[in-house]
């Protein structure tokens, strides 16, 4: 039983559109336009809110108040910042490769849009539902590094180049751990489709179903996901104390804001994938045997469940950033290649044994 089912809403919109315009290209276009506007607004609001959240979390960890002046508790601060950045002049660099310099923000933002489209927020509240969903997200989210590399290379600035190269080495390395830790769960679930992954967690979340290997995979995914999004303690690509701003040193105004936005959205995407694959997606917390408890949990809307879990993971990632000091590049690569990768391979073997012997719940 699912309360608050979004398939009813979407199917009623679909049927009313078919009534007025008939089955065909026009209906599809209108539906896509509605979804597009919704996602555009969601993307912008999410970005603004995450920046606000980051500043508040950072402030509370450092025993400060953070933004307080614009709006109640500084809630409008990021909107004011956004308007300011929008009104700034875009400065071009004489010695830069103009075409690549301008193309880079397009690639970064488009990659995060493509990835966020596959996230299931609720039953029926998902646009892209491929049967290779996990693989698709891993593929498009690694497109973002192309934009980062282009931005650094095209700027013709030494800081940018070093930042971009570090980012390239870092993201391609940690890409492996992200893929392999998700694979551990795919072995358990036997599917790569997001909707089926969520449906498989109706009785219990995969992190509990798979015992210790699933928990190890979750920890590896969190570490690798933080590194993939270029966030602290892995923010070597934009280490402000040594590289000014890394790969986006030369970007000004709204182009800088777009890189910033993409970074925060990518953090949310990593948190959403962790939620969907490990923590049951929009499924409520169910404990086998406790029927009364399970029924009470069913009354909390699934969308709320999804965002509560996702923002908990986002909070943990922010906690990482403001707790650990930045790593050096050799430490970073050692961590991936000498610790996480072998551990991951062994973990997959253990998970296979667990699944074959039926030890999972």
């Amino acid at each position: 039983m699912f309360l608050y089912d979004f398939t009813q809403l979407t199917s009623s919109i679909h049927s009313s559109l078919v009534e007025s315009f008939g089955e065909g290209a026009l209906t599809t276009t209108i539906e896509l336009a509605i979804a597009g506007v919704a996602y555009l607004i969601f993307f912008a609001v999410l970005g603004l809110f995450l920046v606000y959240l980051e500043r508040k979390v950072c402030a509370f960890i450092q025993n400060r108040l953070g933004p307080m002046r614009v709006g109640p508790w500084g809630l409008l601060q990021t909107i004011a910042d956004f308007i300011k950045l929008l009104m700034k002049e875009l400065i071009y660099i004489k010695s830069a490769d103009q075409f690549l310099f301008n193309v880079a923000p397009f690639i970064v933002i488009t990659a995060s849009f493509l990835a966020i489209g596959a996230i299931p927020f609720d039953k029926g509240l998902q646009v892209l539902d491929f049967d290779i969903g996990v693989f698709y997200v891993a593929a498009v989210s690694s497109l973002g590094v192309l934009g980062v590399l282009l931005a650094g290379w095209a700027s013709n600035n030494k800081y940018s180049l070093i930042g971009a190269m570090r980012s390239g080495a870092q993201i391609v390395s940690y890409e492996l751990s992200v893929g392999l830790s998700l694979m551990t769960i795919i072995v358990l679930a036997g599917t790569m489709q997001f909707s089926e992954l969520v449906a498989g967690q109706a009785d219990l979340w995969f992190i509990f179903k798979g015992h210790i290997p699933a928990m190890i995979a979750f920890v590896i995914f969190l570490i690798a996901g933080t590194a993939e999004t270029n966030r602290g303690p892995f923010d070597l690509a934009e280490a402000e104390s040594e590289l000014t701003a890394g790969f986006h040193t030369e970007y000004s105004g709204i182009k800088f804001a777009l890189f910033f936005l993409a970074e925060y959205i990518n953090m949310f995407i990593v948190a959403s994938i962790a939620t969907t694959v490990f923590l049951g997606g929009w499924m409520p917390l169910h404990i086998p045997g406790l029927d009364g408890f399970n029924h009470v949990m069913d009354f909390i809307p699934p969308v709320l469940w999804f965002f509560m879990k996702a923002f908990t993971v986002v909070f943990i990632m922010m906690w990482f950033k403001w707790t650990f000091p930045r790593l050096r590049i050799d430490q970073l690569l050692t961590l991936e290649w000498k610790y996480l990768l072998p551990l991951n391979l062994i973990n997959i073997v253990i998970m296979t044994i667990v699944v074959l012997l039926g030890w999972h719940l």
Partner: protein
Amino acid sequence: MNTEGLILFFLLGVTLVGLAVIFSGLIPQKTTNLQKHDTYECGIPTQGSSWIQFNVGYYLFAIMFLIFDVEAIFLFPWAVVMKEIGMVAFIEILIFFVILGLGLLYAWKKQALKWE
């Protein structure tokens, strides 16, 4: 909906960036001076171009990544059907991992994983 959805999200990304860049190109006031369009290097003039050769270490890790990423592509279909095939799949992947692990050990011994 999947193909249309892909096109939709691609267009959304391009539209968002395009609109923002066009707006910022038209509305804000433009000024110019001699140094404004120079490369930023904390106040001192840049020495030469930045399009130069750089540390080969980055390439080594890129090559390593290529090997392991291809291996990951082989593993994804295996992971999906593992439950159905059962024990045979487990033995096969064990052999695969042993060969792969030997490769990683070789790279480790050859100091390919050491940053210089």
